[in-house]
């Protein structure tokens, strides 16, 4: 169905587009180098994961893909912290962080396109759905880029705040996968905001892509999220002070 393709593309591309737009605001003056550092590892990692997907999925009692994705999400967060702390490697680290996210989104999309169940979708559905998904994701990224540029100009801490939210989101995604794989204790569910703001609604979808909104978070997820958010925010503030 068309709507499934659109949602699939949006779910995979929107977080990546938002992260790329945020990092481009940061590295606006050296965007060509950023693009280069981002493109090469992205293609390399995507090719490796896509080609070895079957083998990966069979590893670690069939949890290979989940654990690899968790690792990539966590790597993305660590690289963002590193780029905030070390000015010398900020460009390379942040490009690699984006590449980690790209390899997850890219391999998921490739899987979706080549999955046997795709036979139910007509090629027109796939083309139109992907065009809509890419169009919406790219448009939001452009608007996000200009909004962040304005915010950064007026209030530098707002940029640090949004970057920290984006970084913490990657940890939230990793924690969800680790919970799913039983590698992280679930703990009690803290609240239920599905009725108030559904993850399937437009706003819920956007907040999920931006800051890892979860309608039913567990205690371990929340603690991890807050810890990582605080850590990255501190790193960003440290970077600003150093400047």
């Amino acid at each position, binding site marked *: 169905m*068309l*709507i499934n393709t*659109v949602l699939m593309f949006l779910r995979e591309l929107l977080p990546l587009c938002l992260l790329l737009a945020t990092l481009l605001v940061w590295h606006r003056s050296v965007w060509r180098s950023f693009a280069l550092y981002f493109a090469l590892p992205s293609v390399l990692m995507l090719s490796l994961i896509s080609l070895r997907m079957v083998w990966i999925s069979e590893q670690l009692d069939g949890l290979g893909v989940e654990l690899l994705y968790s690792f990539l999400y966590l790597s993305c967060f660590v690289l963002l912290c590193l780029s905030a702390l070390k000015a010398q490697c900020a460009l390379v680290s942040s490009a690699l962080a984006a590449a980690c996210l790209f390899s997850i989104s890219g391999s998921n999309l490739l899987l979706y396109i080549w999955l046997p169940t795709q036979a139910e979708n007509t090629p027109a559905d796939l083309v139109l759905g992907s065009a*809509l998904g890419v*169009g*919406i994701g*790219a*448009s*939001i990224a*452009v*608007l996000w880029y*200009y909004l962040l*540029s304005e915010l950064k*100009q007026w209030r530098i801490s707002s940029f640090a705040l949004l970057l920290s939210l984006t970084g913490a989101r990657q940890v939230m995604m990793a924690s969800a996968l680790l919970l799913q794989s039983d590698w992280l204790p679930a703990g009690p569910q803290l609240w239920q905001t599905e009725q108030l703001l559904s993850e399937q609604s*437009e706003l819920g979808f956007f907040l999920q892509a931006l800051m890892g909104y979860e309608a039913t978070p567990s205690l371990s997820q929340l603690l991890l999220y807050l810890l990582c958010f605080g850590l990255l925010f501190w790193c960003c503030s440290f970077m600003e002070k150093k400047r």
Partner: protein
Amino acid sequence: MRSLRRYLVTVLIALFTLISFVAALQSYKQSAIRAEALFDQDLQILASSLSQQYQAGSQQELGLALQVWQKGKLVYRSALAPQTSMSDAEGFSEHNFSGKRWRVFRQTPTDLLTVIVAQPLTQRQQLADEVITASIYPVVLSLPLQALLIWLVVSKALSPIKRFSAQLSSKKANDLSPVELDQVPAELDQMLKTTNQLFARLADAFEREKRFASDVAHELRTPLSVLQVNLHNASSQWQRCGISDPEGSMLALQAGVERMSALIEQIMLLNRTNPEHFQARTEQLDLAGLCRQVVADWYPHIEKKQQQIELLGLEHLSLKGDAFALRLLVSNLVGNASKYSAVGGSIQLELSAAQDKAMLVVQDNGPGIAPEEYNRVFDRFYRVGGDRHQSGTIGSGLGLAIVRDIVVLHQGRISLGASDFSSGLKVTVELPL
């Protein structure tokens, strides 16, 4: 924002794409929901049409009409179907019966069996309309949002031009400082640089002109003073030696030098009070007190001509202005009145305040000025009657030009008219309080 063009193109394309695609998705979702509901409704109608057969007196407005013919005999018909065949043509066709227009489908699977199904056209159109309306709504509703966002984006993009224009329009006549803007887009950068270069060149030119006029007047004043002293000495020597001057050449020479000195003095003052150059130091001052001082300054001259001068009206009149410039204004007006009034003439100064302005009226009983000359007397170096001024008074033709400049500087008004005396000139100056 580095480039207005890039910003506008990318943001507008992104906005259009986002809103159009989201509207298309909403249309898709709404249409799918509506279509789902319609398919469910179709099932209900079919069930209802079949069940009406068994419900006596039940005649629903919406529903299907069904007929089953076997060997040319009607073996089944729903409540809405007539006794006669609804259609004789195979496939789709349209017919009228039961007071409605129907869309009919006739199928004959075997020679012995014929099934005819009909649905009212109004019902079909209504269902189609519902689906189409559901798909159009999001697109129509997105239009005001698009318009609002376009307005915001274009306003944001043009804000540097607006700020540039605001800075230019708020500049005072004598402010030639460069325009400074944050975040100058590429398209505006060259314009800003050129404008600032123009301001810098103009400031240099004004400064040179100002310095030149001032330097010339200053340099001329010293030799003229020496010339005046020498002339005075020469005249005294002539008198002591008993040299006669029947044609009055010495007197004419003295008058010429005196006039030239006055002219240079006035040129310096004109240069100083020019609104383009003058940096007014506004302060709260008492115009009545200032008038009294000017009258006191001129009194020896007035007394010498046996003239009468009176100051009427308010004893205190506080306003904001430049003390030097206003003193010069009153002095020029009183001086003109005294100079151009005959011996024994009368001069009157009157001060009043009305609403938000102060009024100073200076009038005399001299020869006055013809109304057609009123506008011209404010021109620089213009003297009524030219050099052959009937009063024979030494003048430069700059006094009223200076007065007008000072009035302009204080954003006031000046007007000339006939004096309240039997003859003479009345000068009315209005200054904001």
